[in-house]
């Protein structure tokens, strides 16, 4: 495989050629040479795009995959296709499969099953058996099989004592527990963000309090155990402040936000469209402003796709009967870029998409320099495009973004000696 990337601005803050413009030649999966202008050898794929940027391949901290058990929603191959089209070369997968990723055999299955793909799949092991929030799983064993983190995924850890023990248990290997905060006794049967819109629709609300109580609890548990907790996909302004304070106090707390929560507010639900039914719920405009400020000042470390593929039968229903979740791998970058114009420059955006997620999981960061294994994403920040159903590479179609104009396009990803070019 020979690839030549023409005149791309390199975004690689810790690398040697940060913010320089160069031609990059890749041979057999390795960056062979870089210079101001290179000749094109025979049999070479040339990527020549106006305003191209190239950065270390992006990494999604937490997508849902359907394999094993829900392959009709998403299998490894379709997940990798959607991820590559969205600019990702690495995806950490949550354990909400059937069976759950809860022992070394499931972890190893996922590792083995995903080998040879352009996208590296990293299993997140369950904290509790079946993600049911009762018994701790064999986390040491899963860690030994390369599970990168532990979480019950879309199921928030309701039991404080269980999380406390999990946080203690992962300390010997400096493990991290991801928890999406939602106190189910407060959230009870909520269908969307509690606010003016939920009131006008007669839908039961998910109060910000349901999230914030658990963020506060998790921070206290991190302080007590001196262990690492990651607040996954927070969504309210108060949550951002709680994490900001925890970081200022020196606690090992990190946080992420889902790109879709930066783009839409709860007004999007005015007509009961179940494609906007996601967790965490789409919040109010003040929350979105606080999330952006949290990204800008470093309180929020990562931007996630919050990719939750669901079959049509689970979504094309009366609103309260539809399941929570939306696909997001192909749109996360563009929605983040569109939402964060004027808030985050491209260097900071790459930091949230590629650098911080790997750092959080203790994974090595690829660099763009001669001799390095080529793991990179080529993109621009000015092309306007519209996400249309025929462009969707996920097996599921539950996207709220169809028909929306987005800014910034992924042109190619290169990893594991393979290249995927944009299909549009």
């Amino acid at each position, binding site marked *: 495989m020979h690839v030549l990337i023409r005149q791309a601005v390199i975004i690689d803050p810790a690398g040697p050629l940060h913010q320089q413009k160069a031609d990059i030649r890749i041979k057999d999966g390795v960056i062979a040479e870089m210079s101001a202008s290179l000749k094109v050898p025979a049999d070479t794929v040339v990527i020549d795009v106006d305003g191209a940027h190239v950065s270390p391949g992006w990494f999604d901290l937490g997508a849902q995959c359907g394999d094993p058990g829900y392959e009709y929603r998403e299998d490894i191959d379709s997940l990798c296709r959607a991820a590559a089209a969205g600019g990702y070369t690495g995806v950490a997968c949550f354990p909400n499969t059937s069976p759950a990723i809860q022992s070394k055999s499931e972890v190893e299955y996922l590792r083995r099953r995903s080998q040879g793909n352009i996208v590296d799949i990293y299993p997140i092991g369950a904290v509790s058996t079946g993600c049911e929030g009762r018994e701790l799983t064999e986390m040491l064993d899963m860690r030994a099989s390369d599970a990168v983190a532990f979480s019950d995924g879309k199921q928030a850890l309701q039991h404080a004592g269980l999380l406390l023990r999990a946080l203690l248990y992962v300390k010997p290997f400096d493990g991290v527990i991801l928890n999406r905060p939602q106190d189910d006794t407060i959230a009870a049967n909520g269908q969307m963000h509690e606010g003016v819109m939920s009131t*006008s629709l*007669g839908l039961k*609300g998910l109060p910000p309090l349901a999230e914030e109580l658990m963020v506060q609890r998790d921070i206290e548990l991190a302080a007590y155990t001196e262990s690492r907790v990651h607040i996954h996909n927070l969504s309210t302004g108060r949550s951002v402040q709680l994490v900001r304070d925890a970081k200022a106090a020196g606690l090992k707390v990190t946080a992420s936000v889902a790109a879709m929560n930066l783009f839409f507010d709860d007004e999007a639900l005015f007509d009961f469209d179940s494609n906007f039914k996601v967790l965490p719920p789409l919040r109010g405009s003040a929350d979105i402003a606080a999330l952006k400020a949290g990204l800008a000042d470093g309180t929020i470390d990562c931007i996630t796709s919050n990719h939750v593929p669901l079959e049509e039968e689970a979504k094309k*229903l*009366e*609103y*309260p009967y539809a399941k929570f979740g939306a696909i997001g791998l192909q749109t996360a970058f563009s929605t983040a870029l569109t939402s964060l114009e004027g808030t985050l420059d491209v260097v900071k955006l790459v930091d949230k998409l590629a650098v911080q997620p790997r750092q959080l999981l203790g994974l090595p960061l690829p660099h763009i320099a001669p001799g390095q294994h080529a793991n990179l994403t080529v993109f621009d920040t000015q092309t306007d495009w519209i996400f249309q159903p025929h462009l969707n590479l996920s097996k599921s179609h539950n996207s709220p973004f169809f028909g929306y104009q987005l800014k910034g396009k992924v042109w190619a990803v290169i990893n594991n000696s393979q290249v995927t070019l944009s299909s549009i």
Partner: protein
Amino acid sequence: MSSIQQLSVSHLLGIKPLTAEDIQLIFETADEFKEVINRPIKKVPSLRDLTIANLFFENSTRTRISFELAEKRLSADVLNFSSSSSSVTKGETLLDTVNNILSMKVDMIVMRHPAPGAPHFLSHHINANIINAGDGTHEHPTQALLDAYSIREQLGDLAGKKVAIFGDILHSRVALSNIYCLNKLGAEVTVCGPPTLMPKYVQSLGVKVSHQVRDTLEWCDVANVLRIQLERQDLKYFPSLREYAQYYGINRTLLDSLGKQILIMHPGPINRGVEITSDIADSSHSIILQQVENGVAIRMAVLYLLAAKR
């Protein structure tokens, strides 16, 4: 019916999408139909070419009967479908059920459904006029129309009238539709009930909130007392019916102590002795049975006006 005016909508999904002019048009049309249903021959041929399906996915007696009567008095062909179980537990989706019925050439759908937004969902996927006869905790537009119409009949123009809605605001589609309707007609609205049965952001709908029954009764011209919806409460929101009746119920002693006459309304069915005592429900204060009569006229008006939009 010589009116050439038309509604701004082609479905009645709720009161929220209606304009004040739409509501006035429905009232004026209902005036004419009320005259019709008090004739010896209570039937007109207006909708004789239409087939209307009444789909009730939730128990109902009076709303279903009222719609059916309205349809029959307009000479429509009527099809009734009732299922107390939700579509999900039944195994067939709502869309499949409705498409099956529509393929038998049905023109309009009247639907009651336990899920908020179910008629909106339907309106995106089928080609028939839809009338929402109650969608979960969201809206019940014809109830709000007949409530406002009944107030108008008793007190005249609603602008500036003070209407209090008592009871379980959190689970009530009647409350939400009433709030929208009364606001559009210029009435002042206060909602009154225990804080656990009050949506946190209810004030954003343009109403005042009270937890004091006596103060609210002293303020209002009309008291619309809602049914305690025990069947729609998934949790315990108050400890006992006995305590509710004592602190939030409306009784004779309370009304007599006000020193003024107010109208008492109730959308039915009444939990006698809980939200309202029998001596009040059956008293001259009460216009509960007039509401029921007006319900038929209002529903005739809505059916007639939506049929004109076909």
